[in-house]
């Protein structure tokens, strides 16, 4: 069962896994170490850089990489809904408080709501920052086989943190599948997420709670099945991690230099 049954706007983790396992582009042959370090550098870069042009270039590069890796870019864009809502809900109010050239003014009793060019710019910058991280994270997950990913996690995190991380990732699959099954049952009898919440709020609340309870129950059964095959608290990685090649070291070096240069050169650069 696919978790895309829940909504087209929620990442389909089965599709993500499927892309990762079937991926045969050049990016799937890049070491997970390289991709992981690039993720760290990207996070650093967007933390220190507030120049919308730099962010736009970075976002375009990542999107281009998604196209080159033949990832389902339309789906990825549809999955932006949640991060966009998250950013707008945070920045929506801040945008009306920024100084700058007035673009829109809404008179209210006793005061006026003013949207400035800097307010719009702030929304744009924060949105781009969020989308850069989301898109690159999806790119990372969709071009890295789970075996490689789990081996990477096992190397990075100490036990039992690595086990918690890996099993929590798998638990996500269970919860999503369970939610999809419940929603299918609701839809099969004419219900829908919004409609059910509006018309049968209590019932839908119970259903929502049941998703978690059932997921935990199934997680217990899965744990039992794992124990029966020798799981003793250590998820053994089924592969070794590919080491970065010289070209990958070069890419990481260039990316690190770009971060340093941005920190030094960009006029809007702040501290850490």
């Amino acid at each position, binding site marked *: 069962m696919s978790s895309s049954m829940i909504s087209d706007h929620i990442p389909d983790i089965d599709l993500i896994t499927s892309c990762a396992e079937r991926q045969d582009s050049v990016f799937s042959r890049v070491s997970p170490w390289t991709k992981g370090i690039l993720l760290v550098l990207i996070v650093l870069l967007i933390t220190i850089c507030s120049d919308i042009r730099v962010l736009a270039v970075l976002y375009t590069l990542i999107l281009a990489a998604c196209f080159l890796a033949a990832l389902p870019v339309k789906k990825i864009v549809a999955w932006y809904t949640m991060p966009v809502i998250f950013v707008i809900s945070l920045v929506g109010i801040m945008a009306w408080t920024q100084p700058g050239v007035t673009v829109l003014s809404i008179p209210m009793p006793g005061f006026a709501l003013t949207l400035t060019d800097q307010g719009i710019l702030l929304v744009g910058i924060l949105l781009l920052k969020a989308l850069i991280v989301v898109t690159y994270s999806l790119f990372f997950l969709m071009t890295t086989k789970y075996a490689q990913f789990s081996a990477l996690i096992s190397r990075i995190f100490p036990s039992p943190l690595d086990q918690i991380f890996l099993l929590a990732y798998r638990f996500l699959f269970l919860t999503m599948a369970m939610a999809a099954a419940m929603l299918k049952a609701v839809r099969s009898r004419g219900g829908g997420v919004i409609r059910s919440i509006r018309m049968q709020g209590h019932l839908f609340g119970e259903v929502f709670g049941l998703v978690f309870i059932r997921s935990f129950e199934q997680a217990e*059964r899965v744990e039992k099945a794992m124990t*029966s095959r020798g799981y003793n608290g250590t998820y053994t*990685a089924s592969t070794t991690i590919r080491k970065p090649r010289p070209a990958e070291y070069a890419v990481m070096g260039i990316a690190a230099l770009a971060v340093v240069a941005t920190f030094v050169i960009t006029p809007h650069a702040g501290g850490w």
Partner: protein
Amino acid sequence: MQKTDQASPHAHCAPVDPDRELIHVDCASHTYPDGSVGIHNMCFRVLKNEIVAICGPNGSGKSTLIEHLNGLLIPSEGEIWIRGKSIARVERGDLWKEVGVVFQRSEDQLFAPTVLDDVMFGPLNLGLPPDAARQAAMEALESVGAADLIHKLPNYLSGGQKRLVSIAGILAMKPPVIAMDEPTSDLDPVHCAMIEALIVALKERFGISVVIATHDLDLAARIADRVCLVKNGAVYAEGTPREVFYNTTLIEEAGLILPGTVMTWLDYCRDTGTEPVEQPITRQELVSLLRRGIPGQGR
């Protein structure tokens, strides 16, 4: 056939040839945390190279017994022996190497992102290096006829495919005993036949002893060497399928219904006034009997 005495703890374990015994569960009681008794006064053995069917209605303790075989559950009172050694002395954690369990719901067993990863899970836990684990997984998938599913995502497999992959996940560990909880439940007739043939092949080709927990008495009649009737958490009776399934009172007392072939044959005998001297247990045996003519009756 042996009918067991459920009232006397330990007195029910009849002696067997120790060279043939792989697993012996002598569970005086297993009580769940809520106080409900899962099994009690249970003596259950798995011998070398046999298919043994645990038959009983829902809630009779079949699944609890299966989990005792693998060490997932330990008797509150009693002992488990592996090849004559009590698991008090043998590492409890080693039981899973002796008895692989195929769970009733394949979804509970298939947790890895791909079929290959899932089948490799057991061999990796056995300490095999990744390449050897991959090889073991490939061989197991080929053995169950699921080699083409190797890179599939378990979520997208059909029920029958999931069951095959679940069995491959256990077979890859090469345990001497495989226990299957309701192996054909929720499957279409074609996949039921595939699983049935696979169970027989596990015994005949690989020399693996197979324990099946089922309330499908027709399946037990067709493939089991030995049948254990379970009732209220204890072995109620055991014997060959012919001995057990032609004892209609016993089957009724155990809360079960006779296998289709046996029921048909007994109905036929009653309607025609024929004495059921011969006791066909499978459809083939019944057809063969009808072809050659029933003793004491003209054709």
